[in-house]
């Protein structure tokens, strides 16, 4: 095998691993340095990152802008709540085992309806369908608890090995749950990275860039969009599954359109044209929102203004801006 044949990515996988290792190390060491509250916040950040990562498979790689991803996040959360209601046992693995196929089915169903349409219809259809789920969660109150929602108590982790009851349960739960979520996060990032660099991922990008040409390569556009939708919704749904035990409660708010907007915002903030953008956006947004909510009652207004400003001024997001600056610096050096 001559040198040309060796994949350029083999070299870049090593580079990527080298760059990611210190970050991962830092994330592993964090609990030793920060208190329970900060750790909890970071856990929420990782969960948001997973949600945004899933979302961006559709936007950044397939070119489809969904305004209804709250549907999958919320459906994941409610599925866990229903498992608690009807099956009783509180094992995190059980939640994930039942939750993932559930959100996959919901994504498949809604995706089937949505991908048949042009981009404009697609966007509003995703928004509207998530509102349908919201209205069901709100109105079928005898099942869903209505606006009060459903409680989800602390689950046992690692098949019951670790459980957290008693007066210090919460303090013990948070660090363990952080590592749990971190592990899932790492797995999600790896899986998504492989997907995006697979033949399937390249095909999605081709469809994004030039639908006509993709069709003339024999690619069945609708089918690929649908599969992308399914994978995307499943990732975001998994985030919802991870979220609800931490939050302790799920309410219809998590299905509301504003939450979909937050997911969009995360991807835009971090930059939707690269892989790490949504991850950065998810984590940064979690911190931004926490401080915004603490500062003003009208943080949604703030969010809207920042969103519009971002689109006008910084459409490639944080990571995009950084990489542009990086390019300019390296060009200056040579």
């Amino acid at each position, binding site marked *: 095998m001559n040198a040309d044949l060796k994949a350029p990515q083999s070299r870049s996988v090593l580079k990527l691993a080298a760059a990611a290792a210190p970050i991962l190390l830092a994330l592993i060491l964090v609990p030793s340095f920060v208190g329970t509250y900060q750790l909890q916040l970071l856990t929420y950040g990782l969960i948001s990152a997973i949600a945004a990562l899933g979302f961006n498979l559709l936007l950044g790689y397939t070119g489809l802008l969904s305004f209804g991803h709250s549907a999958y996040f919320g459906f994941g959360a409610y599925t866990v709540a229903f498992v608690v209601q009807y099956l009783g046992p509180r094992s995190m693995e059980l939640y994930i085992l039942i939750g993932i196929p559930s959100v996959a089915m919901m994504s498949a169903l809604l995706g089937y309806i949505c991908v048949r349409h042009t981009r*404009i219809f697609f*966007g509003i259809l995703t928004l509207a369908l998530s509102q349908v789920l919201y209205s069901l969660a709100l109105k079928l109150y005898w099942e869903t608890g209505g606006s009060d929602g459903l409680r989800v108590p602390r689950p046992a982790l690692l098949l019951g090995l670790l459980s957290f009851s008693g007066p210090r349960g919460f303090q013990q739960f948070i660090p363990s749950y952080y590592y749990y979520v971190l592990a899932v996060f790492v797995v999600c990032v790896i899986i998504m990275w492989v997907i995006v660099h697979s033949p399937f991922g390249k095909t999605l990008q081709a469809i994004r860039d030039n639908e006509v040409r993709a069709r003339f390569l024999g690619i069945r556009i609708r089918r690929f969009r649908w599969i992308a939708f399914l994978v995307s919704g499943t990732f975001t749904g998994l985030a919802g599954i991870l979220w609800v035990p931490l939050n302790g409660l799920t309410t219809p708010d998590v299905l509301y359109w504003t939450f979909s907007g937050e997911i969009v915002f995360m991807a835009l903030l971090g930059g939707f044209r690269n892989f790490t953008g949504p991850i950065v956006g998810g984590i940064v947004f979690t911190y931004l929102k926490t401080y915004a909510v603490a500062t003003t009652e009208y943080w*949604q207004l703030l969010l809207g203004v920042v969103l519009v400003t971002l689109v006008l001024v910084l*459409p490639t997001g944080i990571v995009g801006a950084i990489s542009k600056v990086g390019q300019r610096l390296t060009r200056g050096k040579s």
Partner: protein
Amino acid sequence: MAILTIQILNSLLYASVLFLIAAGLSLIFGVMRIVNLAHGSLYAVGAYVTAWLVGRGIAMGVPLRWLFLVLPVGALAVALIGIIIEPLLLRPFYRRAEEYQLLVTFGLLLILEDLIRLVWGGTPLSADTLMDALPIMHIGGLFYPAYNVVVIGIGLVAAVVLWAVIYHTRFGVMLRATSQDRRMASALGLNVGLVYVLAFSIGCFMAGLGGAIVVPTQAAVLGMGVDALVVAFVVVVIGGLGSLKGALIGALVVSFVRTAGIQFFPELELAVLYLIAALVLLVRPTGLFGTA
């Protein structure tokens, strides 16, 4: 029999309001190829402004008959917002990818919904005293406010006026030319920028008018904008985006289905509407009369 008549009248009332919203949305799309996600919020602003003005008017002792003039004022306020928004927020994005347009209007949606909360707070704002200005009708032993019939009338008049403007005036010709081929229209000397801003503000006016005329019958509440958008969307899906006729027929269909839905399965009313929309989309992806 009387109950049936009232149900029908209520459906027509709702259809009237829906038509105004959907027709505005369709007009904007037809001419500018933009879907304004904040369109429902503009409807909400119309409702709030009108309710607020009515409240002020009553507080100042203005006789009820005069307060009817507030309705078009509410709509005009929204049109004014449209005139500001289009050049500021929409024009920079005509040449860019569609995603950015949707993102900007979504940002606008967030802004408007919270601005409403900032200005008017969380308690519902009502203008039902306006309904008292008109007599109560008797329908087979039951009472029905004449105001509702006025609303139906306004919807009808709006449909006729819109149709007349679009198909029988020079301005309408300009609108249609620009919607069919923007570059050609520009090459023929039409001021496309002016057509755009006018079309947009007419669309906004209609949304605002919808809000203005509905608020005496039901108070303005937070979230009414997005709720209206979601239903208006079903209307344009069924009727077809970009078609006036589609907006009218879609509004009627949605309205009657919704009234029936509320009777028989109130929790599932929205889900049923979307089921129908999904079915229509399966059979006719561009809606019954769509140009998309």
